[in-house]
């Protein structure tokens, strides 16, 4: 199926795929504009972007030192299990 690219429009699905690059200011101007035009009328996507930015903001405060005892080992086990396809995320 061919993808129709309208310079004046962008779908919610496209926005979800582009939102990280948008938040990190890595989009070319034309794509950035299409994305912002989408945000102008799409309330759910505005909420999604705000949640994503808040997650990044909160996660940015975390450091290894702030992890509760045992959490680092628990996370490492979970990721190792996930990589082996065992999905032991607790």
């Amino acid at each position, binding site marked *: 199926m061919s993808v*129709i690219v*309208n*310079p*004046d*429009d962008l779908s919610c699905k496209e926005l979800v795929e582009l939102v990280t690059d948008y938040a990190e200011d890595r989009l070319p*101007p*034309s794509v*950035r*504009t*299409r994305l*912002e*035009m989408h*945000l*102008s*009328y*799409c*309330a759910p996507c*505005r909420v999604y972007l705000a949640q994503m930015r808040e997650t990044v903001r909160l996660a940015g405060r975390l450091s290894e030192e702030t992890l509760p005892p045992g959490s680092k080992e628990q996370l490492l086990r979970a990721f190792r299990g996930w990589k082996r396809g065992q999905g032991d995320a607790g």
Partner: protein
Amino acid sequence: MIAYKFLSPGAVAPFTGFHWPVPGPSGAGAWVEAPDELPLHGIHACRVADLAFWLDTELWRTELADPVVDAQRQIVGSRGRLLERISGWDEGMARTFAEACAWRARDRAVAALRGSALDAEADLLAGTSGISRLRSVSHALAAHGGLPAALAGYLAETIDFLLAGDSACSAYISARSAVVAEGGQESAFGAEREEQSSLLAGRLGL
């Protein structure tokens, strides 16, 4: 250069969260310098023809200082300031604008249906007056198949969002319906957005 800027409540830029300095008793708001090079990080505003692409709660007449460059559906300057809020753009006008967009969608649907010899469906939509009645009729038609269902579906959603108070989304869906009415021509979307902008500018006396 005089241009326009839609902002979120409190003169907040909708994408960056920047709080714009608003005009006071002594005149225009303070100049704001672009943080980086144009066009990506300049001060963005829109021309009258771009209005419908950027709807938000507040509309401000804005001055951009040279150099100002043309960009996609907007203009970008190195400095900008707010001159005055367009008081005519409020909740009531947003609703009136969205209703006008819905009627435009209805008229396009009627024309497309007649063009496809679907006169019964066209007559039904053409003979409907009142937004609530138009909503009922379009929802009923949307349950059928083919072109009438597609056009009526867009019309029904245009009205649903309008009645929910989301005029920006309502106007957007109305413009999307132009693409269906034009047999899938994507350019119809931009053309309809420009028509909406013209309509809005007329209502606001811009």
